[in-house]
């Protein structure tokens, strides 16, 4: 029964700063706003689509998707109401599209609307999205928590340049979700109450909800697992033994959901040496002195014990992997070769390639020594990985200097900073990345020759490794033309293998899940890596133990 279970307490140590996901793009904002705003369809933990505001998922079969793949038609459920009591209509959907696609609005989800020619309201409950070109994956706009429907009446004056001035709207959007905001304190606390207009009269079970921000992952986990002050803590990525210690209290547990997040090492195929003039470092002007040698890259990968890394760093919320694209099933390559560490093999490989061990235990060839700088962002697990990997590499005769960079600098794209991911002024670097929705194609499209970051594109390219293989580019074009899902998966697997197994330009380490802690007294939690973790918060209940 609605409101019968009292208060729901959620802690998110990274606090949400706004309730409008179109303006932020950060996961923390998505999660918070998903309590209030809903898309047409969501993704399940298994990566499948389920209707939310839509009556059903449009497919070729039910005629929702046009034969030529150039349009998709969504039908809204009947009788939907905004939390202020007004009906939800197709105009709201059209408006939501308009809102994000406004060139001056700075909408962070713009990519989801790529290729859309127009969005039109067919009738009060039907919306048709027209694409400029045939779209093999039409489930992009309005699918997932990052593409919710906002109320036209509320946001009408917030288009384009006006978007940031609408503080009240951004902080307290009128939605269709199970809760509505009662108080929003940015980067601090959000309080909600059950939405009286929610479509299922029995839900949500909780009368109020709070999302508290602040602290760190350990503190958040502690407040759920040890003190029991909170019911749910988001993103409690901690070392496995700490988690195990906390779980011993018996108040709750940590569970993980697997999406597409892979922790990997990128190899720099260009020379980052500071002896080159600024503007030529880490660009195609100077190939890397030794990492261009495939044998060296392969040896780097072979020396790593992914199993051990998982055990130390992630426990149950990680799996060793050799893949760049770990999911969906059809796209993931069955490649398992890298899972066993092979130090001797790596040594042999290097010997064979002519890299002989020099005086100081470092291999060299033609005066080039295997000495590298290994950088990553500041993060306890990553620093442990660095130390371990450094040791393994030193065993095969490669010397590594470690470097860490503050995350906001590392992942920032400030062209003035030498320490960004894109500039890659190091020989190898480690981070994790994923893709959204069920379609890895754009994710694979990052690795074409023209996307290598360089001064020419203000270092904004996405091809971090500066990988360049015309065969890859060609195969990618083919993928764009392919419609058949099975065929697409095959090509995807091939592309994936070209990046990893064949070239070792990317050395995948671990397929990471997102870990969250929840109290044993919380029922209905279905942690989800493909959508907002709170996607089914309407179904959560208090269970008696």
């Amino acid at each position, binding site marked *: 029964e609605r409101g019968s279970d009292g208060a729901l307490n959620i802690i998110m140590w990274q606090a949400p700063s706004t309730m409008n996901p179109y303006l932020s793009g950060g996961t923390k904002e998505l999660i918070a706003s998903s309590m209030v705003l809903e898309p047409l369809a969501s993704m399940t933990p298994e990566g499948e689509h389920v209707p939310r505001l839509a009556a059903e998922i449009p497919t070729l079969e039910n005629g929702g998707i046009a034969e030529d793949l150039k349009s998709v038609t969504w039908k809204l459920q009947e009788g939907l109401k905004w939390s202020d009591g007004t009906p939800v209509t197709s105009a709201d959907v059209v408006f939501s599209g308009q809102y994000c696609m406004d060139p001056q609005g700075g909408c962070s989800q713009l990519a989801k609307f790529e290729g859309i020619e127009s969005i039109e309201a067919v009738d009060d409950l039907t919306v048709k999205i027209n694409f400029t070109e045939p779209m093999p994956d039409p489930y992009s706009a309005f699918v997932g928590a990052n593409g919710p429907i906002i109320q036209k009446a509320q946001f009408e004056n917030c288009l384009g340049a006006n978007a940031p001035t609408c503080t009240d709207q951004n902080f307290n959007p009128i939605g269709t979700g199970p809760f509505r905001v009662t108080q929003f304190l940015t980067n601090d606390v959000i309080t909600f109450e059950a939405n009286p207009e929610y479509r299922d009269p029995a839900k949500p079970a909780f009368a109020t909800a709070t999302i508290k921000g602040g602290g760190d992952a*350990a503190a958040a986990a502690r407040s759920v697992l040890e003190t029991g002050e909170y019911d749910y803590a988001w993103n409690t990525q901690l070392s496995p033994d700490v988690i195990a210690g906390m779980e011993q209290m018996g108040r709750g547990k940590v569970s993980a959901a697997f999406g597409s997040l892979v922790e990997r090492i990128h190899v720099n195929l260009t020379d980052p040496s500071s002896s080159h003039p600024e503007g030529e470092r880490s660009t195609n002007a100077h190939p890397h002195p030794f990492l261009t040698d495939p044998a060296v890259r392969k040896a780097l990968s072979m020396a790593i014990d992914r199993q051990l890394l998982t055990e130390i760093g992630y426990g149950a919320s990680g799996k060793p992997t050799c893949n760049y694209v770990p999911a969906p099933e059809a796209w993931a390559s069955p490649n398992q070769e890298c899972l066993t560490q092979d130090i001797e093999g790596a040594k042999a490989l290097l010997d064979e390639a002519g890299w002989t061990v020099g005086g100081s235990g470092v291999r060299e060839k033609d005066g080039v020594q295997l000495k590298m700088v290994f950088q990553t962002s*500041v993060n306890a697990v990553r620093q442990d990985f660095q*130390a*371990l990997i450094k040791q393994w590499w030193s065993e095969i005769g490669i010397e590594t200097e470690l*470097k860490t*960079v503050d995350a906001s600098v590392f992942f920032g794209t400030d062209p003035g900073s*030498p320490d960004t991911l894109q500039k890659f002024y190091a020989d190898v670097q480690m981070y994790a990345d994923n893709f959204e929705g069920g379609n890895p194609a754009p994710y694979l499209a990052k690795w074409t020759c023209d996307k290598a970051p360089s001064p020419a594109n203000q270092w904004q390219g996405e091809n971090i490794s500066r990988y360049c293989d015309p065969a890859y580019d060609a195969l990618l074009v083919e993928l764009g033309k392919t419609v058949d899902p099975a065929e697409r998966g095959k090509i995807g697997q091939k592309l994936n293998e070209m990046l990893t197994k064949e070239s070792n330009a990317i050395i995948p380490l671990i397929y990471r899940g997102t870990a969250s802690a929840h109290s044993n007294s919380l029922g209905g939690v279905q942690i989800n890596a493909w959508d907002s973790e709170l996607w089914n918060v309407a179904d959560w209940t208090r269970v008696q133990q």
Partner: protein
Amino acid sequence: MTDTERQHHLDLRETVDATAAAAGATAALPPDNPLHAGGETRSQWRDVWRQFRSHKGAMVALVLFVLTILFVLVGPYIWTIDPTYVDIRARNSGFSAAHPLGTDQLGRDMLARLMAGGRVSIAVGLTAMIIAISLGSLIGVTSGYFRRLDAPLMRMTELFLALPLLPLLLLMVTLFREPLSQSFGPAMGTFILIVSAIGATSWMQAARIVRGDVLGLKEREFILAAKSIGTPAHRMILRHVLPNVLSPIMVAATLGIATAIITESALSFLGLGFPPDFPTWGRLLYDAVDQMIQYPSRVILPGLFISLTVLCVNYIGDGLRDAMDPRIRGR
């Protein structure tokens, strides 16, 4: 009459006078042996040292501090395990013969890490503190002493106090990390960068306090007297002003060491410090906080060393201050 003759004459007279006055009293007089006593035979520093030695707390602290320094400097030659060597099978092991203080989550030997970490922490703490204190005293004294410089220097202090630390540090690192590591090598370059970053951002409090004291001191008559004998400004500051504002400087110095050690670890959480596998006490402490319950010794050990160092420095500072203050010395 030559000087020696004159002196001799004077002494003779004193003895005569003394005998004339009261018999046998001279023996208990202050050890006036004017013929042999010279003003410089005993230097000020030896005096201070002698006094310092009588300060029990300071002596104990000094011994402990020297031991700590020996531990971190000489220790690694005796206990030769590489502090960055990962022995994954031995991870999380407790106290044992192979690892007297246990190992960390990657099986790195804690004893070796404490020794290596201490080197860095003590070096950073001392150097950064010295930089901060010298800078602070210099600016404080100059602005308190020279009326004309007061306003600009104090406005500059305010500016520094107001500057947000983090962006400043980030900027410093971006600008200077590479040039420094190129000219001094990566470890030394980072060291220079860190100590100057900490030093350059923590001198303000000392400066303000010293300035305040100097303002009061300037009105004392002996400063006027020193002025009247033509004491130039620099000498005035070094000989008359500084010794008289020593005690707040000492306090700032002790507090400064603690802050520098902790700040160094804070810097490494930001990726601004030493390479990540390079242990320092502050970082060892920080890394172990999450595992405090499972492995308490990992927090206690570095915490103990930090506190011990700070306490030692504090007591040494106290002892020095007392030893340098002739008024307290007698007590």
